[in-house]
């Protein structure tokens, strides 16, 4: 679905991603893991086109993506839930959700009911401004907003940060459901092993801007965890 070949990326003069390679299978749910600061978020931003890559290519279903501007990647089928949520603080919840409607293929004019089934709290808060929501509510909004796009690939950057346990579970269910039932490809960054193991079938481990291990989730060994995740 998505393959990333030899990507290099810089912030100013410092290189963050080093010749990075990554392959995501269609319909899979892949978890990217690694310590703080190894470049996970950076990688996702590169996929979204929010950071320029210096070299290398990013393919979506074989189509090169790296030359496309950021705003054409959502229509190409990628939904993004950023770390820190990045909801539009002064738009109402409703407006936040409606933002994505125009690029839906089916030309829907209303927010799909499905979103509210997944996150009922959003329905209650429809007229409140995004920025006024609590952290967890914002996180739900961010996921909902990405789902409005009906993406082929859903990218989630630590979606459970600050979410109450029953909703974490619920988000897990949602991801599983979308992945399993609707065949949505999911890329997930997650620190919590339990959650990662529950929802994803693949893992990729990152270290200093490179992917150092990739395998099925079942094969994530204590050894690897100690080496790449423990402090």
């Amino acid at each position, binding site marked *: 679905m998505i393959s990333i070949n030899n990507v290099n990326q810089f912030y100013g003069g410092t290189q963050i991603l080093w010749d990075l390679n990554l392959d995501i299978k269609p319909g899979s749910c892949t978890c990217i893991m690694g310590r703080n600061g190894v470049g996970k978020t950076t990688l996702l931003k590169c996929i979204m086109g929010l950071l320029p890559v210096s070299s290398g290519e990013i393919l979506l279903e074989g189509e090169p993506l790296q030359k496309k501007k950021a705003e054409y990647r959502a229509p190409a089928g990628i939904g993004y839930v950023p770390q*820190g949520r990045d909801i539009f603080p002064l738009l109402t919840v409703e407006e936040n959700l409606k933002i994505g409607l125009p690029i839906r293929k089916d030309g829907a004019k209303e927010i799909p009911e499905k979103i509210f089934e997944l996150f009922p709290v959003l329905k209650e808060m429809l007229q409140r401004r995004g920025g006024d929501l609590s952290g967890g509510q914002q996180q739900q909004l961010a996921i909902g907003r990405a789902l409005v796009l009906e993406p082929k690939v859903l990218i989630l950057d630590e979606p459970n940060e600050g979410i109450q346990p029953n909703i974490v579970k619920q988000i897990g269910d949602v991801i599983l459901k979308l992945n399993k039932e609707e065949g949505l490809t999911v890329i997930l960054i997650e620190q919590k092993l339990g959650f990662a193991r529950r929802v994803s079938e693949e893992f990729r481990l990152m270290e200093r801007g490179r992917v150092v291990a990739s395998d099925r989730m079942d094969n994530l060994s204590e050894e690897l965890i100690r080496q790449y995740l423990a402090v």
Partner: protein
Amino acid sequence: MSLLDTTREVMRRDQVWPFLQDHSQEVDISHQVLLYVEGLNLSFDGFKALNDLNLYINDGELRCLIGANGAGKTTLMDVITGKTKCDSGTVYFGQSLNLLEKDEAEIAQLGIGRKFQKPTVFEAHTVMDNLELSLKSNKSVMPTLLATLNSAEYDQIDHVLETIGLKGERMMLAGSLSHGQKQWLEIGMLLMANPRLLLVDEPVAGMTVQEGERTAELLTSLAGERTVVVVEHDMEFVRSIARTVTVLHQGSVLAEGTMDEIQNNQDVIEVYLGEAP
């Protein structure tokens, strides 16, 4: 009072003029309670974010505060630290200090430190400077202008850098730290201030499990000497540190007790924990 009396009063040698007096008040904890929150109400355009909330935190305690998203945890901290004004209710620090009368800076100077849910550090400063600024010191203009770091303070900074694992990044600009690193830095800033009461909003968000464990250790070790209030959704983490847990729901306290009590509380399970996995 006659003018003469006033003059005499002013001239008395044994008295210090009010504006010269040392204002760092001592916190009166004669009843073991450090923080009183009573009858707190706050609504935003009709939505009640805090609803007749009562909460007592003992001195030296480590209290976990949990509750559904939007229950009012962050809002409560906002009120305690002076960021948000409440509609009614009282908040006392010790027996005598009414926090509602004070502004953010005064409250901070009283020894209440806070870590925000979303990490906020001074992006254009180095890690080191961030810590220096948080140092417990006289924070009015003149002393700050003349302040220099003494060796004890250097050591303290070093020590904190060690604790938060940012030794290598000490000269890096805080703005270019990753999310998790910023979390750590913010904890470091809290440590530097050496506060009486720490309000910690979701410290382990974005941290790996192991880092979370380290944070837990750190917070546990702080309690006792200091008082710590932690808000967190990570139940593993809460379990690992919790002695008393308070559950907020819709702006008021739903339940309070030990971790076990809470985990088996039907209400809490319903609104917060969900069925045990």
